Structure formats: structure tokens, C-alpha cells
């Protein structure tokens, strides 16, 4: 398989990896840049949505360069549409590769979801049925992305609001198969687990027990909102616009107790608070990470 990438697009090696270990980080929001730069570099890392830095130049790159100078970076793709049936966008793959080469992130991740159908981009993480056919597509797409950037990605479990009649396997079986076939790592979003468990009426603990934790290279935490479904029952929305819920913190502690220090990111994408509020959420995660001892790093767990 080939991708439309010019040879020599970058002289930098693409296998660069700087393991983060048991450190808590936050989403990077440009409005926080002055506050972040005015303090000494923290024991932390930042995650950015890759697509926001795919412009040719200008202030976004200047901000990301400033952040990257003193902190490890996690590059989080939102729009690759890995979960869809249609081939990946080669131009988007090339842009993604360029960003990886330029900023040398410690972590690169994408979603088990789709966002593009034919030529329309829907700007949402849309769900997919779990079947042998969709599994084959997702594996092809993960392979293609990993070849383009020449390093493994972490694939994130989704939050979903509905299911598909044609689904034939559980989400955890699906994810386990993708990881086994492609060699990718996993990004475990514990808020997504809690949201989906509530929305689909399964046990979040059962899901986590069945999740291939040994392949997890990063954890996401975030806040969620509440709505109701057609029957008037609770329906949780993955809103990323408020603090992490207590129930999600409890699940997080259980996971960290079992798999030790994993880089943990607090996501916050809507109704952005002042920097100290987001920092305090990361500090709460760090306290749990520190309680369960030093980090093993992803490579060791993969080999285990």
C-alpha cells in the first residue's frame, strides 16, 4: 500500500518517541497560552486536535511551537474517518504525516468513528456497526495511517448513543481484534466507557474487565452532560464542557490500580474554563497516578 507522500517531505525521523509515563496532561487551548507560558514548565503534557494545526502558517503554529518547546505533545486526530467504509483521504494522511514530522509528538491517536461520507464532512464522531466487514475496513485504515506516519497510533474507544441491528460482536472484541491485527495501541477514554455504559445499559466495570488494558498507551477523562432518550431514561452526552464526574474518577482509579502509570489527559473542549480550573483537574489525575507508583511505559506493557 502506498500513500501520496512526496519522498523527502521531512528529514526528521518519524519513529521518534518520548514516552510520557504516568503523567497527567490537558487539552491545549490557545486562550490558555499566556498563562501556561508565564509559569515554569510543568511536569505535564499537552494534547492538540491535529486538524487545528493543518494550516500553512500563522499564529496556531507559533503557539504550538511555544508549547512543544517545553512539554511533550500528544497529537490527537479527530477527522481521519477511520471507522467509515470509504478509503482514507490521501491528502489528509499527507497533512497528518507532515504534522508528526514537524512536532515529533510522543503520542499519536485517532478515533474508532467516522465523520466523512462521500464528499461531506460532518464534524462529529459518528458510530459504526461492529461486524467482520467493518473490522476489515478499520484495520485497513489503521494500517494505512500507521504506514503514512511510520509509527503506531493509539485508537480511542467511542462514546455512542445508539446501536446497529447488524452488529455481531462486542465493542471490546472489535477493539481487541483491531489492536491484534494492526499492532496499534489503544487510547482508553473512561468517560466514553461511562457514557456508553449508561446509554446502552451495560456495566462499565464489565467493559473495563474485558478491555485489553495491556495495550492502553493513554487515558482520556472528560465531563459529560445529561439528556433523556425516547423512553424518558437518562441519556449521557459526551460534551467535554465541565469537570470529570465522580463516577468517572472512581473508574479511573480502578484502572490505574490495575495498570499503573498511564499518561492521562483531561479533555475540555467547550465552555473553556480559566487555566487554573483545568490545571486542577489534571492535578487530581496526577494524585491518583502518584498513589499507584511509578509508571511502566507503553512499550513495556505492549511487550508484556
Amino acid at each position, binding site marked *: 500500500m502506498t500513500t501520496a507522500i512526496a519522498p523527502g517531505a521531512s528529514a526528521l525521523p518519524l519513529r521518534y518517541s518520548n514516552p510520557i509515563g504516568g503523567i497527567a496532561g490537558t487539552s491545549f487551548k490557545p486562550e490558555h497560552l499566556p498563562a501556561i507560558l508565564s509559569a515554569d514548565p510543568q511536569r505535564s503534557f499537552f494534547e492538540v486536535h491535529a486538524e487545528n494545526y493543518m494550516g500553512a502558517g500563522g*499564529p*496556531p503554529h507559533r503557539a504550538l511551537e511555544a508549547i512543544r518547546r517545553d512539554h511533550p505533545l500528544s497529537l490527537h486526530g479527530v477527522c481521519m*474517518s477511520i471507522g467509515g467504509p470509504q478509503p482514507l483521504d490521501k491528502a489528509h494522511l499527507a497533512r497528518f504525516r507532515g504534522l508528526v514530522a514537524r512536532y515529533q509528538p510522543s503520542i499519536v491517536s485517532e478515533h474508532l468513528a467516522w465523520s466523512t461520507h462521500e464528499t*461531506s464532512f*460532518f464534524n462529529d464522531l459518528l458510530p459504526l*456497526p461492529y461486524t467482520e466487514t467493518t473490522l476489515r475496513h478499520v484495520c485497513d485504515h489503521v494500517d494505512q495511517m500507521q504506514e503514512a506516519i511510520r509509527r503506531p497510533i493509539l485508537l480511542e474507544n467511542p462514546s455512542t448513543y445508539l446501536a*446497529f441491528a447488524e452488529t455481531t460482536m462486542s465493542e471490546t472484541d472489535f477493539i481487541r481484534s483491531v489492536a491484534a491485527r494492526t499492532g496499534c495501541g489503544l487510547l482508553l477514554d473512561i468517560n466514553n466507557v461511562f457514557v456508553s455504559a449508561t446509554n446502552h*445499559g451495560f456495566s462499565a466495570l464489565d467493559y473495563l474487565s474485558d478491555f485489553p488494558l495491556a495495550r492502553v498507551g493513554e487515558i482520556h477523562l472528560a465531563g459529560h452532560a445529561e439528556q433523556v*432518550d*425516547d423512553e424518558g431514561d437518562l441519556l449521557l452526552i459526551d460534551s467535554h464542557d465541565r469537570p470529570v464526574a465522580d463516577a468517572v474518577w472512581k473508574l479511573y482509579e480502578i484502572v490505574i490500580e490495575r495498570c499503573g502509570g498511564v499518561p492521562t489527559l483531561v479533555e475540555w473542549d467547550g465552555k473553556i474554563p480559566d487555566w487554573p480550573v483545568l490545571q486542577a483537574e489534571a492535578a487530581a489525575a496526577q494524585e491518583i497516578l502518584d498513589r499507584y507508583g511509578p509508571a511502566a511505559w507503553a512499550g513495556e506493557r505492549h511487550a508484556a
Partner: protein
Amino acid sequence: MLHEPTPSFSAAFAPALLDPARTTPGIVTGPHGKAAGKRYDVYRNNVTVSLIDALAAIYPAVQRITGPDFFRAMARFYVRSTPPTSPLLFEYGRGFPGFIAEYQHAQTMPWLADVARIERAWLDAYHARDAAPLAPAELAAVEPERLADLVFTPHPATQIVRSDFAAVTIFAANRDGAPGGRIDASAPEDALITRPEFDVIVRHLPPGGAVFATCLIQGRPLGEATTAALEASAEFDIPTNIAGLIEAGAFMSIDFGDAR
């Protein structure tokens, strides 16, 4: 790579996302046989609201002029008829100024589409490739008898927007919240948009300036550009316009046409 030619789940799932007249796709379900209507509507809402929000982020002055309710209703029509075709949302909404110009309820604000054109150009300048602007000394070093043949290479961020209305003044008043008196909306204004270094600038060009700058951006020599500008406006002043464009950082380099 093999991809099944049979209809995919996404072909069944996608069409109703931006079309409220369509029913919930038959392929989706709630857990344990529950209904999926409101559940599917979460995706409809996420898609529609996030794309309207994207337009609001690109066109803040337009939203400030119309108010959020008017803006969001107008943007909803646009989003449903013209969803993005790129995952880069800062590329979205290029057709929005034209849509505004045709939008029935915006006909009382004939300058609104031009304000939107300036905002779209602003965002393109914001994301444009970094490049050092032409140093004034380079121009000063050109022998006077060769000036007419001089050709300018525009800075990647440079754009011109022409308006039959006071679009630059209206843009400035509603973008930065600059206080001002009453605006005579009927006074035509042309804008230069560029980003010499960190900050995007929007300048009101003097008479003939837009024709002059457009000729230079197109690569026509300085002599031709001057003639065209003087034809467009008898008030056109060469030194003021050249100095203004250079000072704004509108160009990257100069050479002579025959050197190309």
C-alpha cells in the same frame, strides 16, 4: 484494497443527519429494543450545531451585526445545503458570503455579504504561509528608469476585497468593537487584508488603490498597474499607494518581468 460495492451503513446513516424531513435510519436501534429517535437526534444536533458554531467562529462580525438568532437561522440553511467537503473547518464557508447576498431576510443589509468576504479573507490570511514581507530598502534600491517594469510577488496572506458599501468600516466596528459614530454604509470601500508577521491587518485602500494592488498581485508591471489605477480614479496617488502597500507588508519580493 477491497471495499464492498454494496450499500454501506454510512450511506444509510448519513443522509438524515442534515435533513430534518428524513426519518431515523432503519439500521439503528436503542438497547434492548428501545427506540432510537432521540438517540439519532443527538448526532443530528451535534453535526448541525457544530457546523453553525464553525461559521459563527469564522464570521463573528456578521453574527454581531445580525444578532445570534438571525445568524444561526441563516447559518442553519447554509449548513444543510452546503456541508463542508474538507475536514479542515477553517476552510469551510467559502460560499457563505454569496449565500448571504441571496438570503431573503438579509436584503435590508446589502453590505453584509461584503463584510463576510472580508472575514473569510481574514481567516485565510491568519492561516497563510509565513513569509517575510518585502523590505522597503529593496524598492528604494531600484533605479528610477526601471520602476515601470517592476513586478511584485504578493505575500501569501495578501487579498483585496472590493465593496460598493462601507464594508471595511462596518467590519472594523463589529469585529473589534471599536466605538464609532453613525456609519454611512453607502460609501464604497475597498479592503487590503494581509498578515506581515503575527497579526492580520485589514486596511481601507485609497481611491484607485484596489485596482492598483490587484494588478500588482496578478503580476502586471508597476507601469501598467499605475495606468489602470489612474483610469479607475483620477485621485489615484502613486507614492501614497506604493508606500502604503509596502508598509502593510502586502508583497514578498520584487523582480523584473523579463527575469521570469
